[in-house]
């Protein structure tokens, strides 16, 4: 019974031997992309945003403000611009991501109670540095005004403690669950690395199956499996399942054990990986069954694999997408894997809450099992359409 299967696996392994693309697509690319992302965002948060200060006041108070701004973690004062116009020029040439303007007579007005206005500009065309610059500027503007209030209140005879409280009577303490450092690598690597894995599984599955049709070797392939499509497909794809799962597990160990990214239930993540790999293979197999043509199936898989990075809601929430668009996120295995990651690793909650996500990954396999028999006719009459 297992004879055909063993021969098919052996045949598949010898194919890997003669084609470098398997080594490339299954091992090199996933590992290289993972290394790239993890090394790129190693520091966690791109602080020290290059910014400029436009000091039109030039008084001890304004210089003090400039110094405080430069000493914050978020902001790096890389330029002193003479005017708004000069600072805008620096923004337009990409040298700075924001600037802070201290108006004329700032000190005089502030001390005489005439309410001067501090303005700050953040370039939001680059979201992360723009936001960080905004945050740094705003904190400094609020603090500097607070300092003046405190001095005045104390002048009225209010005690230092009471003045401090009056400055900020209500404090909203923020607790960032799972990622208290707002670490960008934790946020992006955990979604983009599985996304890259999914893309390569899609491509390599299509490649392995439909290449047989292109080279008209599909009949021989079926014959090796004693004419059983199930044995043929399992024999071809099982070795890939093993390789991709091992790569996935290795990446899990790197992320959660070596880099210590938050992971509540490591075992549940390891359990999700083979299910995810099989779901991705099943997805690609369904596409192969619907369009049994090497180029078309690869095109479809690449298009969906790349769109997955956007539509699976890694950065923009699916809840806020248009319903007709957002619904497509659920046909992608990586969406379910991402939801499992949020529950099991980031938030570390009970697996009960993720049960549907695990089920969904299994459903992909059932869909492939239902649709794959369509392939058989095409495998018996291979026609190459370029």
């Amino acid at each position, binding site marked *: 019974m297992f004879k055909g299967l063993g021969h098919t696996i052996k045949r598949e392994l010898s194919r890997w031997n003669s084609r470098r693309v398997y080594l490339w697509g299954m091992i090199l690319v996933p590992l290289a992309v993972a290394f790239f992302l993890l090394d790129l965002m190693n520091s966690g948060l791109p602080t020290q945003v290059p910014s400029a200060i436009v000091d039109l006041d030039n008084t001890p108070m304004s210089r003090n403000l400039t110094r405080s701004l430069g000493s914050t973690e978020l902001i790096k004062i890389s330029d002193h611009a003479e005017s708004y116009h000069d600072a805008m020029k620096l923004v337009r040439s990409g040298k700075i991501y924001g600037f802070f303007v201290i108006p004329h007579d700032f000190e005089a007005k502030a001390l005489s109670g005439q309410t001067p206005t501090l303005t700050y500009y953040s370039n939001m065309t680059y979201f*992360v540095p723009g936001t960080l610059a905004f945050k740094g500027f705003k904190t400094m503007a609020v603090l500097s005004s607070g300092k003046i209030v405190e001095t005045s209140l104390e002048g009225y005879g209010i005690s230092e403690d009471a003045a401090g409280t009056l400055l900020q009577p209500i404090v909203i303490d923020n607790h960032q669950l799972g990622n208290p450092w707002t670490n960008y690598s934790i946020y992006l690597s955990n979604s983009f690395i599985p996304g890259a894995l999914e893309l390569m599984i899609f491509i390599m599955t299509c490649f392995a199956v439909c290449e047989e049709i292109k080279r008209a070797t599909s009949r021989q392939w079926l014959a090796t499996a004693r004419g059983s499509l199930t044995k043929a497909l399992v024999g071809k794809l099982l070795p890939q399942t093993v390789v991709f799962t091992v790569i996935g597990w290795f990446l899990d160990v790197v992320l959660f054990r070596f880099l210590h990214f938050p992971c509540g239930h490591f075992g549940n993540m390891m359990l999700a990986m083979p299910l995810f790999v099989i779901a991705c293979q099943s997805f690609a197999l369904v596409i192969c069954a619907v369009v049994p043509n090497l180029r078309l199936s690869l095109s479809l898989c690449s298009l969906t694999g790349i769109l997955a990075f956007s539509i699976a809601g890694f950065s*923009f*929430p699916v809840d806020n997408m248009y319903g007709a668009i957002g619904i497509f996120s659920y046909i992608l295995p990586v969406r379910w894997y991402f939801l499992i990651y949020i529950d099991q690793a980031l938030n570390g909650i009970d697996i009960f*809450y993720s049960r549907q996500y695990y089920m969904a990954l299994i459903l992909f396999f059932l869909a492939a099992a239902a649709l794959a028999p369509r392939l058989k006719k095409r495998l018996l009459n291979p026609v190459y359409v370029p």
Partner: protein
Amino acid sequence: MMKRIKNWIFEVARVMRRELTLSLTDIGVLLFFVVLPLFYPLVYTLIYNPEVAHDIPVAIVDDSRTADSRQLVRMTDATESMNVIGYASDMAEARRWFDSKDCYAIMYIPADYSRNLGRHEQSHVEFYSDMSLLLRYRAMLMDLTSIQLAAGADVRTQTLAPLGMAASSMSGSPVNNVAFMLGDTEQGFASFIIPGIIILILQQSMILGITMLGGTSRDRRLRNGGTDPLAVPATASASVIGRMLAYVFIYLPLTIYVLHFVPVFFSLPHVGSPLQYFPFVLPMLVASAFLGITLQIMVKEREMSFPVVVFTSIVFLFLSGLTWPRYAMSWLWKGVGDLIPAVWGMEGFIRINSNNATIFDNSDCYLMMWALAAFYFLTAIWTTRHLNRATRLRRHS
């Protein structure tokens, strides 16, 4: 001499005509060259077009149960980003809502909230937020900061007014502060990411198409004993220039569509002058064409362009600095990014398109793209010679 130049120009023209025919009659290549630039920008913008994360469900645990705490909850509910879904009786219940994804954040108002305010002591409110998507967290954080300031100012007024202090000078703030957002004034996600993505689409679709053409030509050679019957005899330089002209020619109308009409369709930021951004992207198209021809060496058959090229889009997206800024990259990744035409193209185009910059402001990007065009022209010539030589050798053996 003149005759040789004339011959060379004729060669270029013949190569260009043949390459146009080959590209425009190949459905697989047309998918990359035409369909991808036509529809991908639309799909991407539709995904991100809602722009902001709004009405994120938030649960409240209010142990204070006073007018003050209810006022705070009303302020929270009134923000754009947050939507109060209800009061949980205790943290355990709120946590259950959170775990079942009924809410993405919990606000806990302690029992002494109102009492502390009355005693002129600081009142603390705890806010727990889900960190799976930073966009959600960012939206909530910005609104929470405003709430904290506004609620604080109210309390200050109430406290100081009876003491007879001038409300304007003390209760409010002695220094106003005004924030301006440049480029993407509404801080929308589509407005931020689409101007960069469309440039990357231009480069990547072109490289995919060119490598597919190269792979198809190698398939033909394999079938025809080492020669491509559809290739035009030409020197390497004429062949490279001719093909580049064909690709750039196909991409000119698409570039106008992608760079001008897509932002207009969706009213994304689009303040730059066409006289700035069209000349600006020209060297990127030229460099991408040469880069594509160079990469043909890695694509040994028609369909091999997928496993070789597709994943690079993710890498290039990150190298461009759109998600992780270039100033925070190590010299290695910055150096790798320097070699990618679209990295410079995205940087410059975003600033021209959204910040109304000029080519002159971005002369470094512009010159770098021409330098890359020159560099990849040389590598393309080398690739072409290498492929031709390999073919000749095979024919002799």
